[in-house]
């Protein structure tokens, strides 16, 4: 299998994503934002960062970059597309996912290790987890508060498209554990076709136990398994709680 990490000029998690995938044995290429094709890839990642400085709104300008036309066609054909942090913002701006990400309610950038709960595993990105599993993954964003109107939320809920929620150490999605004011503590959602996943936490920063958590690996491993690139003993891989050190 082959993965592509899109490189916008202000991407800054592109190298981390390539590293995480490469360490799992995936051949991964950088694809420049001025390119116009993602043909031949089995996974496309929109990495975190500040794509075009994020001067207007996060992801607003990136949405119009030349590569995005190809990315949209690629997604429309049912291929796997993962947007992390700024990548999630771009997916929303581009209309590939509903809703929008607005300024954190504290008005401050927030960087910390964060618990998130897996809400649904009937998708290619989390199927190796157990529903309700708690993952500990870093977040780092200033505009990560998910916002959508009531009709959209209802639809997301009904179609089991909310995949991750911010929770506390006991796995409860209480307001105190919500780092940015996201509606219904939403940390990640999927599209109707269940092939486009956007999330604010950074799984690529949680793939190495030395960094305090390798809970992010399960997301990449799920992707690989669903593409048939690895076969895993599901029980061994599925954490019911965090596998992190602390």
């Amino acid at each position: 299998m082959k993965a592509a990490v899109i490189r916008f000029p202000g991407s800054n998690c592109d190298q981390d994503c390539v590293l995480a995938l490469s360490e799992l044995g995936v051949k991964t290429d950088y694809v420049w934002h001025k390119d116009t094709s993602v043909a031949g890839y089995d996974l496309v990642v929109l990495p975190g960062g500040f794509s075009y400085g994020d001067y207007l709104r996060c992801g607003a300008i990136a949405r119009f970059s030349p590569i995005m036309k190809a990315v949209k066609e690629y997604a429309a054909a049912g291929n796997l597309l993962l947007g992390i942090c700024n990548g999630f913002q771009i997916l929303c701006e581009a209309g590939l996912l509903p809703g929008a990400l607005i300024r954190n309610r504290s008005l401050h950038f927030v960087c910390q290790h964060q618990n998130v709960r897996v809400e649904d595993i009937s998708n290619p990105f989390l199927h190796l987890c157990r529903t309700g599993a708690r993952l500990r993954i870093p977040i780092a964003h200033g505009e990560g508060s998910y916002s959508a109107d009531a009709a959209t939320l209802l639809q997301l809920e009904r179609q089991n498209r909310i995949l991750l929620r911010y929770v506390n150490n006991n796995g409860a999605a209480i307001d105190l554990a919500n780092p940015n004011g996201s509606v219904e503590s939403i940390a990640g959602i999927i599209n109707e076709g269940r092939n486009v996943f956007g999330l604010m936490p950074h799984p690529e920063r949680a793939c190495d136990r030395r960094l305090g958590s390798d809970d992010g690996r399960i997301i990449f491993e799920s992707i690989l398994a669903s593409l048939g690139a690895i076969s895993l003993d599901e029980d061994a891989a599925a954490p019911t709680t965090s596998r992190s050190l602390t």
Partner: protein
Amino acid sequence: MKAKVIVLPKQSVLDPQGVAVRDAIHHHGLPAVKAARVGKFIELELDGSQTEAQLHEVCRDLLSNPVIEDYKLVVEG
């Protein structure tokens, strides 16, 4: 020739900046301010070769996000 674009969060959308500004004004000792909303003001200098429809397109597609924001466009001169 100039265009001015005002982009404001929709009434239904949470505006944490607006709340923070109102609270700060109260702290400053001016309770007369009942509410505040914070948006963007964008001033464009034009050479006249554009149409108003083109400007609206830019406002809708780029300068604002219709999911959470409304915009107002005024072309001058």
